[in-house]
């Protein structure tokens, strides 16, 4: 079936550099996407979300970009810090599930490692 996936399993960046984490989704009907961060030994933590009627959304040091043409989602982290080291997941609302607290389909996850 259709699923959310990630291009790269690991990403290593230098502290202070910008990080870009990519996610491909296959279901063009998905209309809501979320990025989660999971630190070792903890549960996933919400970072930022975006609806399909937007192509960009900014938060504090993070930006999510959505390209519906190629079904691609990315998370940009500015001035990456050691505390950003974690596993990052993208997630989508499957078709028919739109609405607050509907179920999400998560991607496999990508590890971000920040070099000091």
């Amino acid at each position, binding site marked *: 079936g259709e699923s959310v996936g990630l291009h790269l399993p690991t990403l290593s960046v230098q502290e202070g550099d910008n990080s870009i984490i990519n996610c491909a989704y296959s279901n063009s009907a998905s209309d809501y996407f*979320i990025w989660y961060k999971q630190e070792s030994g903890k549960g996933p933590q*919400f970072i930022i979300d975006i609806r399909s009627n937007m192509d960009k959304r900014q938060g504090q040091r993070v930006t999510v970009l959505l390209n519906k043409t190629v079904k691609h989602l990315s998370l940009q982290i500015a001035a990456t810090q050691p505390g950003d080291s974690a596993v990052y997941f993208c997630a989508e609302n499957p078709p028919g599930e*739109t609405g607050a*607290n509907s*179920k999400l389909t*998560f991607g496999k996850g990508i590890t971000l490692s920040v070099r000091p």
Partner: protein
Amino acid sequence: DARVTQTPRHKVTEMGQEVTMRCQPILGHNTVFWYRQTMMQGLELLAYFRNRAPLDDSGMPKDRFSAEMPDATLATLKIQPSEPRDSAVYFCASGSDPTGTLFNEQFFGPGTRLTVL
């Protein structure tokens, strides 16, 4: 600081034993989710509840898994009998929808790490 709590944090058991995992959602949240996380499969939704009613448990093996919400402050996930392939981290998450918006944030607990020998 409102948080989702889960107990136990770690559980080691032998194959065939019953396992019960508990979750206390954030007070006032009306939706509760159970996820399982493994290296191979990632995060998988097992079941979720809204206002204590089960909405979807299609991700859960019905023959051995059961999920309930005895009251608004407690969600349980049971495995009986447990098998080695059930070894994973089980997460509970909760959310709320007071205004009917499409905001979909789910707050995750710290998880229960289950090992079935």
